[in-house]
């Protein structure tokens, strides 16, 4: 049994609108896969297809090597956690957890055992007698996870489970989910449009745009070697700075040229030969730029600080550089008044180069 979930040529359309088209995806056993994409790109739709809540127009879905395309949700061995918690408001937490088991006519002692176990794992023991309205957002989300937990499923599906929580709680629960995955080792498919969640939680991230998976890779690859400009721009906050320019040859070596400024491409490992004259886009992440107040370094680019955004731990600078606006991250303690002239140096080993036409990584 290689894969936990396999999706073959999945298509789905609402009327004339094709939301998913011939989508293929294999998710390994025990893998934590994050579906990341902006609003409306079809993440929830895909998840609902896997759960059996939407009927695909075409294609097939296998869970544990069993074709479940036409199975009822309850027979697929999946549990699902929703953004809005979707707790049954009129039932106590305990009842919320046991509802599915009761419907399945599980014997009482077994139900109780499972609830005990879930309550322990999620530390919601003291809340069992309360109603959802008497819980905080984080507690509600924990109960919602518990509802999937008691059903003892193979695959957990999460649809933006943390979007309704405030920043603090979100980061707390993120850690808890990660811990849960480490201890349960179930397959988890997690939908979000928050890149931090994706980067921190995922074994692999699938970045979607208009129903098509743009890149499917581990977080590190996604972050450092994005397959195209969409992925590159989507991941990272603030966004990667894109500089439009072209390749020129200088001293026999390809060099990136924009607005009269040259960037050496030493250290960049291109997949294709970099021909002179090719229109390309250079992508630089804010933290891959070094800011020097002195003019040291051969490749020191001149820039002035436009806006400074101190964020505590970091300080974000918006610079004017060769007619472009560029964001750069420095340590929180380093402060620059707007107007300050600075010199930049770039770590080309971590930069990305895209074809200006196809927007694909070179």
């Amino acid at each position, binding site marked *: 049994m290689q894969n936990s979930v396999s999706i073959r040529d999945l298509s789905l359309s609402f009327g004339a609108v094709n939301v998913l088209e011939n989508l293929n995806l294999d998710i390994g056993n025990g893998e934590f896969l994050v579906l990341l994409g902006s609003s409306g790109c079809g993440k929830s739709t895909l998840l609902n297809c896997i759960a059996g809540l939407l009927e695909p127009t075409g294609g097939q879905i296998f869970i544990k090597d*069993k*074709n*479940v395309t*036409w*199975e*009822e949700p309850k*027979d697929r061995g999946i549990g699902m956690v929703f953004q809005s918690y979707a707790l049954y408001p009129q039932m106590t937490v305990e009842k919320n957890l046991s509802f599915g088991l009761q419907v399945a006519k599980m014997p009482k002692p077994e139900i109780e055992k499972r609830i005990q176990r879930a309550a322990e794992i999620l530390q919601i023991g003291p809340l069992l007698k309360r109603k959802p309205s008497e819980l905080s957002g984080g507690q509600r989300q924990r109960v919602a996870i518990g509802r999937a937990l008691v059903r003892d499923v193979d695959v957990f599906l999460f649809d933006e489970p943390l979007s309704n929580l405030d920043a603090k709680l979100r980061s707390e629960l993120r850690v808890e989910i990660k811990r849960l995955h480490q201890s349960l080792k179930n397959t988890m498919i997690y939908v979000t449009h928050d890149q931090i969640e994706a980067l921190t939680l995922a074994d692999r991230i699938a970045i979607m745009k208009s129903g098509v998976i743009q890149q499917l890779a581990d977080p590190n690859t996604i972050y450092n070697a994005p397959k195209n400009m969409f992925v590159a721009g989507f991941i990272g906050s603030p966004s990667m700075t894109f500089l439009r320019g072209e390749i020129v040859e200088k001293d026999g070596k390809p060099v990136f040229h924009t607005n009269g400024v040259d960037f050496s491409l030493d250290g960049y490992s291109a997949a294709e030969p970099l021909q002179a004259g090719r229109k390309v886009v250079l992508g630089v992440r804010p933290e891959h730029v070094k800011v020097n107040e002195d003019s040291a370094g051969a490749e020191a680019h001149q820039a002035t600080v436009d806006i400074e955004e101190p964020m505590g731990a970091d300080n974000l600078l918006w610079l004017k550089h060769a007619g472009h606006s560029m964001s750069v991250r420095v340590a929180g303690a380093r402060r620059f008044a707007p107007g300050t002239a600075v010199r930049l140096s770039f770590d080309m080993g971590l930069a990305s180069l895209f074809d200006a036409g196809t927007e694909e990584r070179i």
Partner: protein
Amino acid sequence: MTGQAHTGRPSKLLRNLSSKIASIPMMLTAVVIFLGGTIWTVVYSFTNSKLLPRAKFVGFDQYERLWDAPRWIVSIQNLAIYGAFTLVFSLVIGFLLAALMDQKIRFENTFRTIFLYPFALSFIVTGLVWQWILNPEFGVQSVVRSLGWTSFTFDPLYNADIVIYGVLIAGLWQGTGLVMCLLLAGLRGIDEDIWKASRVDGIPMWKTYLFIVIPMMRPVFITTLVIIASGIVKVYDLVVAQTSGGPGIASEVPAKYVYDYMFQAQNLGQGFAASTMMLVTVAIIIVPWAYLEFGGRKRV
């Protein structure tokens, strides 16, 4: 629910079976009663059925006679007058009341109950009460006269020229409460920030209502309009209880014409023809609404 597992797509008919079974009453009602009944009525409007429906077709005879009948013309006119005034006044009064109620007033519940309670009463009751109040011998007229203004005349129910307005007074009394309720619910749905923004902008209250809030409440107004309009077309009990269509035929309405000719005159064909015309009226109201509601944008 779906028996066959991995064999493939299960039968289309069996999917959602419970839902289909549960919807049988609705489907039956829609198809057999509403659709079937309507078609049946339209078909028999082309016959000369008398007491019992008979499939003896006579073409458009019934319609020709209908549009020749002075009473039908009067009925249509009355419906137009009653309808136009009811629409305008119940929306205006209803909205005024709703706007007043929305001022964070005290005793809101009391006022709301007062405005709404007539809606709990049947048209029969409404008609009777207002017949009594408008009766010149006992009601408003005699009271005002007894106060000394002896030439005061207010007898709408006995004056063929204005009788329909007498009916209107009662109709409004009965119906504006609900309109107020609907519009109040709509007003409460307006984002409070809009009010704040307009206050910060220094826009006077009435202008805010007129230029900002009312346009924002378009969907609620449309719903309300449709509810009022459907009531107008059906108006029957009120007229029967209050004036019986009198004096003479001055306050007749189409629904009453239908009823009278179907049952009293024992001329089903004529009644069916009149109901078909009412149906056409309804369609004239519904089609634009349906277009506005469902035509423009697709909602999930």
